[in-house]
């Protein structure tokens, strides 16, 4: 009962927040967005004209021009071009949320389509794959290291974790990627330098999968190596503060093993805060992750954005920013749901 109410509340709050964030983006990019839509209209109109000429060879030039003009006006009308700002805003936001992101200037999807939604859809899975795997790895390994450091507070591991965290907070993950490429790919020549598969990809499902894993290793490792230290440090701090609580002392007095105390009592109690920290970590590491893609030529949204910046392909930049916003919101929302499961106060309706 308590959980259902919690979910309903969080869902409403996140949906509204997403609307607010996209509105913010909309206002920030308003001038370019209008230019982009106009350019898209011109592009769409010329395609319409080609099709018209092919399908109706009998039309006169004047008839053709009037048809094209009507088409273009209708296209712009769909984006509320001749309307006052509130209507225009509503129409264009609706178009965004229906993924009508217009067509790109230059960049094409692998199937040759120039629809921004198709392009983004082609690159998105690779980002989700890299980012989700990386985050899970950071949370799992960083969390365990943090707990172990907390167990032996003042010990060797406990002294190393802050040092690793300090170094990690001052290194860009994409730069580490550069160094890994130079070392593992060009010096040792053991791993591919970038991309997502060999050219041509090896035949057969299993060799292709192994090839994919080899390409995944370095980007994943760079993301992991720069992010796990900070997370371990945070987990350690939370666990240490929980370990001072009376119920932990009680558990110890009852003769429980240290490992059992740590994983059953301490982790159980600290887990909601750890999830909150994971949420912050996810939000903070997305930027680094998408730039890591650039260095490894990993065909995800970060790489797409970089290509779009180079080619000045504004529709693609806007489209991928919009999709990244949705992705981040979903990531954080899932984090909240996990938090709801872990925090016992929510189930009982105390919170």
């Amino acid at each position, binding site marked *: 009962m308590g959980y259902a109410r919690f979910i309903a509340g969080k869902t409403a709050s996140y949906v509204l*927040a997403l609307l607010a964030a996209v509105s913010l983006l909309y206002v920030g990019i308003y001038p370019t967005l209008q230019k982009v839509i106009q350019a898209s209209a011109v592009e769409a109109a010329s395609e319409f004209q080609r099709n018209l000429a092919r399908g109706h060879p009998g039309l006169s030039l004047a008839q053709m021009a009037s048809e094209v003009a009507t088409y273009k006006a209708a296209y712009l009308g769909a984006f509320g071009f001749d309307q006052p700002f509130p209507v225009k805003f509503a129409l264009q936001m609706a178009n965004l949320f229906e993924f009508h992101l217009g067509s790109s200037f230059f960049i094409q999807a692998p199937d040759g389509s120039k629809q921004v939604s198709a392009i983004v859809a082609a690159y998105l899975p690779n980002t989700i794959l890299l980012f989700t795997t990386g985050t899970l790895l950071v949370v799992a390994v960083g969390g365990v290291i943090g707990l172990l450091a907390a167990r032996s507070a003042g010990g060797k591991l406990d002294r190393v974790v802050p040092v690793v965290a300090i170094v990690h907070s001052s290194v860009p993950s994409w730069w580490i990627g550069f160094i890994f490429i130079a070392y593992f790919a060009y010096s040792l020549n053991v791993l591919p330098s970038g991309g997502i598969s060999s050219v041509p990809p090896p035949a057969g499902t299993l060799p292709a999968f192994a090839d994919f894993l080899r390409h995944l290793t370095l980007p994943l490792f760079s993301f992991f190596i720069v992010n796990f230290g900070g997370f371990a440090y945070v987990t350690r701090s939370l666990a240490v503060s929980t370990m001072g609580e009376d119920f932990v002392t009680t558990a110890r007095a009852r003769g429980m093993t240290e490992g059992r105390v740590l994983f059953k009592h301490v982790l159980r109690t600290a887990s909601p805060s750890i999830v909150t920290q994971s949420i912050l970590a996810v939000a903070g590491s997305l930027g680094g992750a998408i730039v890591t893609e650039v260095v490894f030529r990993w065909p995800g949204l970060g790489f797409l954005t*970089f290509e779009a910046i180079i080619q000045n392909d504004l529709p693609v930049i806007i489209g991928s920013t919009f999709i990244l916003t949705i992705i981040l919101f979903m990531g954080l929302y899932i984090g909240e749901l996990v938090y709801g499961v872990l925090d016992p106060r929510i189930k009982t309706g105390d919170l």
Partner: protein
Amino acid sequence: MEPSGRRRGYLREFLRSRSGVAGLVLLVALFATSAFVVATTSPSQVQRWQNPAAWEGNPQAAPPAWVNYFGVDAPQTVQLSLGRWSNLSSGAGGAFSASASFSWEHGVPASDLAVVPVFKGQVYEMDVTWTKPDGSSVVMSVSSPVSGSFYDATSSSFKQGIAQFIQAQTGAYVSSVTTPQEVAALFGQDGRDLLNSSVQRGTYTVAVEVLGARGLAPSSWEVSVVGDSYGTMGTDSSGRPIDLGVLAGLPWALEIGSLGSVVAVVGGVLWGGLSGFLGGAKDRAMSWGTLVILATPGLAFIVALSYNVRLTLLSEALIIAGLSWPVFAIIARTVSLSIKSQTYVEADRAMGVSQLRTFTTHFLTRLTPVTVAFTALSVSGFIITGETLAFLGIEPANVITWGGILNAAISFDASVHGWWWWVLFPGVMIIVASLPFVLVGFALDRVVAPRVSAR
């Protein structure tokens, strides 16, 4: 009285942290270096950096000079100056000659030979005669050279002269020559095997004769025997010295880092602190506002916004700060909530003290140390964000950034070619600039945060 005593306690405790003090010392050194760079750099130097043609005399993609100490034979550039012109003409036109010598003891040839003629008047022809230790010479003639222009192995007149020399020595017809072939010919043992022979060691002479119209006045000319290593950090593929760029990038990194951090932390702590202090519906509304920005992908947003806002140091710092304050707001709100549960806050309320006063006396004083610690701790994050954007190609015009240098490195496939110095030093500088802030921040954080005592 009490807060100032507490402040002194903080200071004493901070000074006890060795890493914190080390960070502070490094920080002072960084800012001093930065101040020196700002004082000695002029806008024209930045423009020169952005103009690849201005660096033609330097070796391209050359490793640092100190690789020579590690068993690599990478000669450094030899700069010759032709200043003492002897007048050969007695009557009509102007004819001058000058020469300079240098000794070459390397096992490899130079990478290029470049001449920059500087003169007043008109020159019909300039003959550059290159004499090797064994006495044979190569003549390269340039007709109507332009004062201040750059003539090297890639210019057609040099190619022509060297190709003739190769033909004379090897007896084979040469249709086109590459720069490596040209320098091999300039430095190799004469004979049929010229292009594949070992380098002649000894004294080389460069002599120049110019023939021009009456009134010709040549001034000091630069002749570069371009090497294969350069400076402390090498050069990029257009010959720009990395050490210069790395140094010039320091002020910008510190500025964007400090400015962004101060704005974001102060704003975030005020927002979150106030939200926790107010409580109830206002707290829920403000927390929701925090969520909106938290869940906004900052980097992608900034990229999108950068097409609508003219980027300057200030605007970029404000945009970055405006998208990264939520983390500080969330933590400050937690601190604020814990302060709120203290008895002195309740006492204030019972005594009818105004809300504003309670907030300034109890909350702000306790949030201030947290703010200082976060500011120091987060500068590195802002430096990295600034450099990351520059790496993506989003940076104000007319600044030199490490991210920009790394962007060029990836565009020119520095990793593929093994030009490690181009990638290593700018990246290391990001760490060097960030680390002291993190060290100081961690030390402050440990002093300021409600302490977690080890068992």
